[in-house]
């Protein structure tokens, strides 16, 4: 049995879950929010650890979602994980935020899981693209998280009999509005508030047995927006040796 601290700040929620080796119980706190994760996360960790009765120097490992997410959200969670890991030389296990959501969906589906071959979590990533991940019905990764065009994501959605959720799911219906066989996209709207947002408690399902991450860097899946300077250089008679040579 391990003492494990888990948290997520990738999208529109901030959540912390602590597993106590002593009691075997899980203590959680979660708040839906679009902004303010950086201010809320550490006090939330402090409260949850206290409520769980677990001290930092008794932790065995950290579990954290590393992305995809908002760039800042993914970095806030990873920076906190890096700090705690650095403070007590703790191993860190990382999860995709989309896998975390898939697990929540599987729990909520209950007996209905038998109707599907997998869960597709789709997050609207704007610019005609979606973050997509497919898991099996145990919540384990089938297709690694990826940033796909809406067209490619539609192909994925039709590849299996999938249960789909997330803000990108409505984009996956056909142009005529037809749903691919078995694909359910309207479910999140009828589901308990916030099921399409990650919840750190689902990381605790297998955090104890997962292999710790080697590189603790966020999973952005998208390059930074930056274009090299396009202004033409001045006409020169003689070239100075380049300053950066």
């Amino acid at each position, binding site marked *: 049995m391990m003492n494990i601290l888990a948290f997520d700040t990738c999208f529109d929620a901030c959540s912390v879950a602590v597993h106590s080796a002593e009691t075997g119980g899980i203590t959680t706190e979660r708040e839906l929010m679009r902004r303010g994760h950086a201010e809320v996360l550490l006090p939330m960790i402090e409260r949850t650890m206290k409520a769980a009765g677990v001290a930092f120097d008794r932790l065995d490992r950290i579990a954290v979602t590393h992305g995809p997410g908002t760039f800042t959200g993914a970095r806030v969670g990873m920076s906190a994980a890096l700090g705690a890991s650095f403070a007590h030389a703790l191993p860190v296990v990382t999860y995709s935020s989309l896998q975390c959501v898939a697990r929540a969906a599987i729990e909520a589906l209950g007996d209905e899981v038998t109707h599907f071959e997998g869960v597709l979590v789709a997050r609207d990533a704007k610019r005609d693209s979606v973050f997509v991940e497919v898991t099996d019905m145990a919540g384990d990764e089938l297709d690694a998280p990826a940033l796909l065009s809406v067209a490619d994501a539609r192909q994925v959605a039709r590849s299996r009999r999938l249960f789909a959720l997330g803000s990108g799911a409505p984009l996956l219906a056909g142009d005529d509005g037809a749903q691919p066989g078995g694909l359910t996209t309207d479910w999140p709207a009828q589901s308990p508030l916030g099921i399409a947002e990650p919840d750190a408690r689902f990381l605790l399902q297998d955090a104890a047995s997962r292999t710790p991450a080697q590189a603790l860097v966020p999973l952005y899946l998208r390059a930074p927006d930056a274009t090299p300077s396009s202004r033409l*250089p*001045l006409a020169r008679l003689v070239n100075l040796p380049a300053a950066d040579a």
Partner: protein
Amino acid sequence: MTSSAPIIQSPKTECKAERQPRKAAALVLGVETSCDETAVAVVKRLPDGSGAILSNVVRSQWEQHRPFGGVVPEIAARAHIECISDIASEALKTANTQLTDIDCIAATAGPGLIGGLLVGLTFAKSIALAHDKPLVAINHLEAHALTVGLTDSIRPPYLLLLVSGGHTQTVLVRDVADYHRIGSTIDDALGEAFDKTAKILSLGFPGGPAVEAAALNGDPQRFAFPRPLQGRKEPHFSFAGLKTAVRREAERQQPINDQTIADLTASFEAAVCDSVIDRVKLAHRMAVVEIGEPDALPIVVSGGVAANKRLRSALEKFATTIDVPAIFPPISLCTDNGAMIAWAGAERFARGPLAGGLDTSARARWPLDESAAPIIGTGKHGPKA
């Protein structure tokens, strides 16, 4: 204590009675990620107010930003998180210490690029929580302002000239935590003007050293560039027009050769020096009036542009003419670093109750002097306002 520097007692000593100063030596870990340097340091502050740097690890990211001719915020934030843990490990190792021996964790909370600030601040918060240590959220400008206390044992009051890539201001440092901003840039920071000039002339990035090297054999009088705000009674700075003048002249001189580039950059530096000296002269006069000290109020110069030799010697010459000391901390402590953050944290820690809990926000904009009125009419936004 440097022998040349007169030590002037602050007139605001009555504030100190309310504080409960800590008696023991303090070991502080400082984390800086506000722009394009990832930096962590360990600094010790002794009860007599002196300090020592036990480690000061800085990793610059300029290689990653060079293709863009300036700092790209998202690239900066990504680069910080990739190395922050390694830099922190190295800082502890070099200082031959461990987190359990640290008394306080200090991190830059602003002003700066928000993505990077969040990395360092969240990392520091997490360490503070995990080891139950106090966290101090540091204003980056305050850290620059207090560096001379660490390096030269200079105590307030003094006039600070801060010239860097993100900031250009004059600040009357009355005491730790007691600042009055006198002048500030109404457009570009001075370091920005150097970067942009370098970019116009394809000299590379970062622009400061590139412009300085190019200007070495140039004629500073060949081009009569404007001396922005010279003679104006508001003590502010402006460099956007100067940069534009350099661009226009460079375009007019096309095709340009090495000598023209040398003359353009030398003339640019000459204009910068004249403008800065004029502005500092005014700020110093105002500062002296404000504190009512007729005697020498030292001028302290910090920020990356303090490395520029022409500006340095101009400031030294000016200080001599008004018979005040001009103090330049070592260049490595003028540019962004963790030691100055740790030191500012130590100065705060030594004075009792700390600002900055686990819910502290990073602030892109955070004037050192919160009571300072905005510089009206400049249309200025962001950290420079």
